[in-house]
């Protein structure tokens, strides 16, 4: 299977051994470097043919629907519904979203760096499902070369019938929002655009556009091979499958792991070697996410249903452990200032509101003021009032911080702070 088209596809399908255990997406064991095309095909078997010899597109979409696959970029939208909506339009295009602008998250970068061909299989199969002849993969700058090599390897082997263009992602937090990805590819401006119309109706250059997170596409490539029942053999009945999670902060071996959805949060932390210091709180979901007390969160399943009681969700699969010797208020102030700076600058409530909120959180964290002042009013005035969900995410984070770090606020009011170190990664501020 080296370099040439040696695919006895229909017969090889029976030889493919679906992975019975996790990880499904990442290479098992301690492999380093990207998995090449030959190793990729040896592990998973060839993907179903995407010409008339393969399964009908409607059949494939049905299978994705039966699998219950949802978007892994944070919004958890049912993938089959998106596929069907885009398939209904003329001359559509597929955009694989590997932007991952969230500075604390690494799962899409790791997936593209380790299993680029699984994502590309998903791109090609998604194109088949919606009837697209072209596809764009937007890759974080750190993995651009790996993706280029993988695309070149497939082109040399004449592996795909779809033309895949690779674009380096914009280095901005909001650049990963679906309409911002499309605007970046088309105009070089990584800012969300007004909706409706839906991207599935009018997206890239006016064409019906399927924007899917790269992890979603990797799952899709396995569902097309092994079917819905196999996919559902991991996860919970309502949230089937596996997901990639980024675990960081006070754990012994921070990094990206693959879990069955619904694994208890405490067990997920054990996959990262367990806490490296007494944990105080967990940030669940990402910088748009929710702070939760470490003791109450540990037994909860890492799933939308399991975290709903904490007002949290899996988001893009992030868990950050805040140790007891860090200050949750200061961490939150750093992240909210970053989010305010990363506003696309289009909507007044986001531009002015997030700046005001960040300022007040900084004053509380810095011990300048003990009271909330106008913070509660600003939080409700900003919530839900942007063209995208950027301000809403920042509001959620601040609200959960005020609730989770009440004791810390009392300490600050008396001139104390329990923080001796910071744990959440925040890029340096840009020159304005």
């Amino acid at each position, binding site marked *: 299977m080296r370099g040439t088209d040696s695919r006895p596809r229909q017969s090889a399908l029976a030889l493919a051994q679906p992975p019975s255990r996790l990880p499904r997406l990442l290479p098992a064991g301690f492999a380093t470097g990207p998995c090449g095309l030959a190793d990729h095909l040896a592990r998973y078997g060839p993907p179903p043919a995407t010409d008339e010899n393969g399964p009908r597109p409607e059949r494939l979409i049905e299978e994705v629907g039966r699998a219950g696959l949802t978007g892994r970029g944070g919004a958890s939208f049912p993938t089959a519904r998106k596929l069907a909506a885009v398939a209904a339009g003329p001359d559509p295009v597929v955009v694989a979203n590997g932007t991952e602008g969230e500075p604390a998250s690494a799962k899409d970068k790791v997936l593209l760096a380790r299993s680029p061909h699984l994502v590309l299989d998903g791109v090609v199969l998604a194109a088949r499902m919606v009837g697209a002849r072209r596809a764009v993969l937007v890759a974080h700058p750190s993995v651009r070369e790996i993706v280029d090599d993988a695309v070149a390897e497939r082109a040399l082997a004449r592996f795909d019938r779809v033309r895949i263009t690779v674009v380096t992602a914009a280095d901005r937090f909001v650049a990963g929002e679906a309409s911002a990805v499309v605007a970046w590819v088309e105009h070089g401006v990584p800012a*969300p*655009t*007004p909706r409706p119309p839906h991207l599935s109706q009018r997206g890239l250059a006016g064409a019906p556009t399927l924007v899917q997170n790269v992890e979603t596409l990797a799952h899709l490539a396995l569902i097309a091979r092994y079917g819905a029942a196999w996919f559902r053999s991991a996860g919970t009945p309502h949230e089937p499958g596996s997901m990639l999670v980024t675990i960081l902060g006070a754990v012994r071996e921070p990094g990206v792991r693959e879990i069955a959805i619904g694994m208890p949060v405490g067990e997920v932390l054990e996959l990262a070697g367990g806490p490296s210091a007494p944990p105080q709180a967990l940030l669940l979901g990402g910088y748009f996410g929710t702070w939760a007390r470490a003791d109450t969160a540990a037994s909860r399943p890492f799933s939308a249903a399991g975290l709903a009681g904490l007002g949290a969700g899996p988001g893009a699969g992030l868990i950050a452990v805040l140790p007891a010797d860090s200050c949750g208020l200061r961490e939150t102030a750093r992240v909210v200032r970053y989010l305010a700076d990363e506003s696309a600058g*289009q*909507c*007044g*409530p*986001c531009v*002015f*509101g997030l700046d*005001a909120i960040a300022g007040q959180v900084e004053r509380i964290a810095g011990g300048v003021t003990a009271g909330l002042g*106008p913070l509660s*009013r*600003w939080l409700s*005035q*900003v919530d839900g*009032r*942007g*063209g995208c969900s950027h301000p809403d995410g920042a509001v959620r984070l601040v609200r959960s911080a005020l609730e989770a770090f009440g004791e810390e606020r009392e300490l600050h009011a008396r001139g104390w702070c329990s923080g001796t170190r910071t744990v959440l990664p925040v890029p340096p501020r840009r020159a304005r």
Partner: protein
Amino acid sequence: MTGKAAPRLSVSPIACDGRGLCAQMLPELITLDDWGYPIIAAGPVPGRLLADARLTVGACPKLALRLGQQ
């Protein structure tokens, strides 16, 4: 106009520039936040305010205000 299809006001936050005309013309349904951007009252536009709402939509200099079913 049946009760089911009662129209609602909405603002496109990307288009809106915070000129504030709408809040002056239709204070019953539109207030301004601390930075001068319009907050639209929830729910459908009551029948007695429908004519005023249409006038306000037409007056928005940024064409950011909409009256529609959704």
